[in-house]
């Protein structure tokens, strides 16, 4: 039970901190949320800078452009980038934290060589093609069909809630390759280039009014068989590798950010006057903030425990479901507190009276997706109940 970072971890921290101190201010402020070309340029540009400085793919294999460093150095990386206010992964999310790690774990040498270095250099943006109108929580019920014709799969179907589909060059695509097998045994995981003929993308604005995800229609799209990751019909297992990454460590930098955000909210509460005194003078508010900080501390300790355990296997454990559940619900409560602190200013999505309404509302509205995406809170509870506690699978 040792929380001390090693001397080499601390050396890594000092170097990274020094680099971030000059690199972050130089990269400037993020572009407006609706300006997607600018966002892609900003996010991939930052990724390129990370790569050039040797800070991309901290725990990815060196052979594919990664650093091959330890899981604890990865944690140091999250801590320092959040502390420095470095740009968020943004459009690189699926490639860096989701599809990329899956290819590291399950891809062929050709797939690794083709994609991993480009993802790390910010040259490839990925999107997700998992959910369908009839396959949300019941993801394994997906119907998008892939029929093998020669060296291609011919894909037909309809995907929805595809994050970054309108800017992605590659899609991690789940398809049904055997319609007769039980639903979990007929799925394959494909790398689908998004410029293939027959792909139609329709943006689907979120409740925050943003165009983060889309519906994607596949009409006789020919995806090379060589683009399959893992064996044919073994895609459900591969998917679970992907999902464990998504649930486990993908949120680590957000958690540290959230701590900073809570401190920011305390600052806003000191500037807002309620009943003639600063809102922060209200002990009920202070206790609520303190309570949320305690939960964040517990969550971060849990991440350290999980990283320590998974440093053996390289894949996050089932506790990722517990972490995802706790983090996403906590994040909603923290961002909602922000809206309540604003009072009347919280009904404006532009800054009013010198208060940061825009950002506070943006964060809260966006947080509403967290308890739905990557397996809803209810699905996470089923996973904890059935796979950790051994409860019956009845629905």
């Amino acid at each position, binding site marked *: 039970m040792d*929380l001390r970072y090693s001397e080499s971890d601390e050396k890594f921290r000092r170097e990274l901190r020094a680099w971030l101190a000059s690199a972050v201010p130089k990269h400037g402020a993020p572009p407006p949320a609706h300006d997607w070309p600018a966002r892609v340029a900003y996010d991939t540009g930052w990724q390129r800078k990370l790569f050039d400085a040797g800070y991309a793919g901290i725990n990815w294999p060196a052979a594919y452009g990664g650093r091959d460093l330890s899981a604890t150095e990865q944690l140091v990386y999250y801590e320092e980038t959040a502390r420095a206010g470095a740009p968020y992964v943004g459009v690189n999310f699926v490639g860096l934290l989701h599809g990329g790690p899956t290819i590291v774990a399950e891809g062929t040498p050709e797939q690794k060589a083709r994609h991993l270095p480009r993802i790390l250099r910010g040259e490839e943006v990925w999107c997700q093609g998992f959910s369908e109108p009839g396959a949300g929580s019941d993801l394994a019920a997906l119907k998008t069909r892939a029929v093998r014709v020669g060296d291609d799969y011919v894909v037909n179907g309809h995907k929805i809630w595809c994050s970054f589909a309108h800017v992605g060059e590659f899609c991690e695509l789940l398809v049904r390759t055997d319609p007769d097998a039980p639903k979990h045994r007929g799925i394959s995981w494909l790398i689908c280039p998004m410029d293939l003929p027959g792909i139609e993308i329709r943006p689907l604005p979120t409740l925050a009014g943003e165009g983060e995800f889309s519906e994607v229609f596949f009409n006789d799209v020919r995806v090379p068989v060589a683009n399959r990751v893992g064996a044919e019909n073994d895609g459900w297992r591969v998917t679970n590798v992907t999902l464990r990454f998504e649930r486990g460590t993908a949120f680590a930098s957000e958690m540290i950010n959230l701590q900073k955000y809570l401190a920011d909210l305390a600052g806003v509460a000191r500037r807002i006057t309620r009943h003639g005194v600063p809102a922060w003078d209200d002990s009920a508010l202070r206790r609520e903030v303190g309570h949320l900080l305690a*939960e964040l501390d517990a969550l971060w300790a849990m991440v350290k*425990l999980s990283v320590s355990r998974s440093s053996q296997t390289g894949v996050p454990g089932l506790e990722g479901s517990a972490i995802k559940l706790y983090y996403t619900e906590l994040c909603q409560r923290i961002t909602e507190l922000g809206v309540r602190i604003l009072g009347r200013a919280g009904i404006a999505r532009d800054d009013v009276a010198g208060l940061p309404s825009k950002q506070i509302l943006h964060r809260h509205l966006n947080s509403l997706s967290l308890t739905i995406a990557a397996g809803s809170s209810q699905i996470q509870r089923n996973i904890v109940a059935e796979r950790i*506690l051994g409860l019956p699978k009845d629905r």
Partner: protein
Amino acid sequence: MDFRLSEDQEALRDGIRAFCDGRFPAERLGECAGAGGFERALWRELAGMGVFSLRLPESRGGVGLGMADAVLVFAELGRRLLPGPLAWSHLAAGLVEGAASGESVVGGLELDGGGPLLVEHAAQLDALLVVGEDGVARLDPQALAAAPVGVPLDPLTPLHEVASIPAGERLGGRELAARLRLEGGALAAAQLLGIAEATQELAVAYAKQREQFGRPIAGFQSIKHMLADMYVRQEMARAAVYAAGATLDQPEVGDPARAVASAKLVAGEAAMKNARTCIQVHGGMGYTWEMPPHYYLKRTWVLGTQFGTADDHAERLAEVLAGAPGL
């Protein structure tokens, strides 16, 4: 950094768990409650296991371990609801003669500027530590004008009310007082973690065997999700409590006061919610005296008032953030 338990720590935890399971099984709860206190024999056996001398250096007859180890031990004691002033006697090792060996049973009282002054297990104490703002004193429990409280909330934690605290033998100043509160907070948090864990396991076991509508209630999503939440709360509490123990041993990794406040708050809430949910999952049986869940709930209330309440710790944590720069 490797936050997992070492092999020695796992062995320590397993040893204490086996002892508690054998020596204080759930059936003994009712029996012990009827007798109005704990047996001295149990105290000596706990001492023999090193519960009180755990952090005393080997040169002074102790085991020479740290707070990270102590929280593991106390989580096990909490799991089985072992009675007695466990944390105080542990804290008294090295301060009060006989505490480490279990020959003296040492209790404690925190003065927070208010009342009432309720001393736990007063009739069985050989010494009482009184922790105030500016220091720690040792008192002879016989010298207290203590009146028993007829019915304590926790049947295993008898109470006496004292009108005033006489001056005792001064053992140390502010620094010692602060240290005892901090370490005591971590030990209480660990016991609360044990309660969160035990109530989760009780509820899961009951839900798997209790049948309604022709099948085990553990199959209903409404129940499953309650049980899943119990597990999540328990695991977050575990992480926070372990972090508090490790941070007290190695202050270079963080702020011990913050780590203890977070652990006490999160573990206290996990214990309270899990004990309540445990009663709910047991249904009508959960509302009876003969079933164990109520003992856990009642002990949780007792531990919740020791070494800072949830509100105290929340206020302290808010102060941690108050100095940070604004948005």
